[in-house]
């Protein structure tokens, strides 16, 4: 509240008003110009966006999540620089413990592959699969859910049956089957994860739409001559976003876990290293060289945790009703 006041009280930038004035006179003229400051402040856009960002950054959990995720993203970006070459190639003596050899700070696995290189390159794969699969799942889920919830009637019935069809099959089994049928590669794994996660989003979106479409502001939007697409995407969807965003951040985490699980079972892309495949290959040496499973496992935990924390922070920041209280 106080910060908003300060924003307003700040005198308008003279260069700003100077730039706006000629535009205003050149623009359409309407009969009743009363507000003297109309054109001075007409340029101040997107205050709301910065406000949400401020709240997000003020929350300690969101900040912790963001910094962990930033670290993971940085690792993914720096992987080709720090560890050029294939992380799957043998570079040293096998089964070096972390700290045993300066050249391999996190040790090597049973085939003499650098564990640190694997973790850095694995971050690329995990993030890629996590984000891409979530985008696929979100797109499908929002499309199906909004159409079903907005239209109702037989369209809704049909789409709900489709959602239920997917939900009755245990999702991980379906995932394994899908990947087994298609050749395991990053692309097919991503699509398969996207295909098994969309029903969750679709159900959520449908439920939100069903309650929101009865709201008066949707009726008012109808009364202003807005088309169906505009009402769905501009009026209803933004109101349904907080739960969708939270679910999406958890979905990225779930997708990362699923990819890891697939790789652990040996169904991952054999040509790339991922955190899951590292755990999988270290499994047999769990008692003698536990760091081979513990380190990738720890990284997965951190990545998943960071996404959940971010989800919480986003939920608070994006809901305008929370703005005043925090």
């Amino acid at each position: 509240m106080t910060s908003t006041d300060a924003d307003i009280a700040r005198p308008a930038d003279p260069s700003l008003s100077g730039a706006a004035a000629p535009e205003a006179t050149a623009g359409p003229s309407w009969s009743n110009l009363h507000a003297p400051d109309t054109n001075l402040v007409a340029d101040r856009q997107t205050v709301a966006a910065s406000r949400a960002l401020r709240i997000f950054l003020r929350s300690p959990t969101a900040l912790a999540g963001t910094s962990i995720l930033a670290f993971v993203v940085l690792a993914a970006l720096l992987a080709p620089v720090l560890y050029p070459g294939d992380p799957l190639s043998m570079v040293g003596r096998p089964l070096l413990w972390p700290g045993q050899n300066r050249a391999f700070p996190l040790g090597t696995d049973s085939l003499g592959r650098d564990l640190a290189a694997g973790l850095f390159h694995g971050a690329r794969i995990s993030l890629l699969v996590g984000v891409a699969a979530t985008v696929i799942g979100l797109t499908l889920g929002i499309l199906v859910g909004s159409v079903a919830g907005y239209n109702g009637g037989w369209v809704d019935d049909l789409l709900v049956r489709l959602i239920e069809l997917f939900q009755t099959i245990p999702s991980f089994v379906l995932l394994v089957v899908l990947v087994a049928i298609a050749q395991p590669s990053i692309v097919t794994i991503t699509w398969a994860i996207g295909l098994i996660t969309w029903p969750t989003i679709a159900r959520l979106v449908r439920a939100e739409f069903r309650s929101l479409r009865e709201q008066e502001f949707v009726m008012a939007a109808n009364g202003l001559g807005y088309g169906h697409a505009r009402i769905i995407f501009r009026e209803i969807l933004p109101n349904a976003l907080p739960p969708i965003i939270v679910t999406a951040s958890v979905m990225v985490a779930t997708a990362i876990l699923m990819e890891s699980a697939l790789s652990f079972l040996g169904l991952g892309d054999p040509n790339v290293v991922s955190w899951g495949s590292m755990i999988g290959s270290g499994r047999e040496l769990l008692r003698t060289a536990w760091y081979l499973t513990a380190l990738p496992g720890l990284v997965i935990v951190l990545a998943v945790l960071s996404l959940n924390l971010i989800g919480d922070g986003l939920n608070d920041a994006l809901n305008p009703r929370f703005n005043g209280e925090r």
Partner: protein
Amino acid sequence: MAKALLDVRNLTISFPDSSPVRELSFTANEGETVAIVGESGSGKSLTALSLMRLLPNAARISSGSITFAGTDLVSLPDRDMRHHRGRDIAMVFQEPMTSLNPVMTIGGQISEVLRLHSGFSARQARSRAIEMLDLARIPEPARQYDEYPHRLSGGMRQRVMIAIAAACQPKLLIADEPTTALDVTIQAQILDLLDRLRRELRLSLLLITHDLGVVGQWADRVVVMYAGRKVEEAPADELFARPLHPYTRGLLAASPRLNGDRHYREAALTEIHGSIASASRESGCPFLPRCPIGIPTCRARFPDLLTASAARHVACPVTIVEERSHGAAVGIRA
């Protein structure tokens, strides 16, 4: 004589098992304020929604015509109807607390309708939206532009709703009980605002209300509805001076008057006995069970709408006789 902007003829709105609005006809001229008055359940809100073609799914317009600026709205395809909404006909709803999109700034909501219908650029729309906020007498419009609806009071929100509805300078503004949810002190301000917009933007105002005080002060012409039918239509001043239909008389008698010398400790307001009849009644005058002057013919079928004078119509065979003799008497004297 002004041209009729809106001409509703024999409008009947039906649900599968009932018809809450029957054979309703009225007109609204350019720049005129027409009030539709009636108690809850008399079909006035359905009438408003039917003009926008926003009836609930179960309801439909089963007969009649709605002609707006020469276009028949009943037979218009959905796509073309959408083109009219917001641009030519706009509506202000009863509930300002829930009629605004809660996650969009109020200015953004005005800009959006401007960009859709008037083809403004983002910058033009923003300037014009601030203009509209100012026109709706919202203090510090440029600052309030970025405010979210939940930060505003009910009265302010209704001003925003009006600003949105009037943004594209529609020809007809329908206000469905615009002040019902508001504080009494705010009511007059909102109605004053609507009236000022009517004059400044040269639009016709269709005021749906159950408040006779509102009608008396702001309307040019009044349509009184009872159980889905028009029972009386008259210029506002004439209606108050000499109500014709027994229902209208009952309503006026039931309104407290400042100069009426009455106090609740000494005298109770008169009331209309009974309650509103079900709109699904098939024949006869729906007001008959409550009517003090009913005659046997009222039971057989709904009384025809009779013309008392050029602008006055009433659906009552009893009082029309009085009125005609009154008119004749006046005529003789003149």
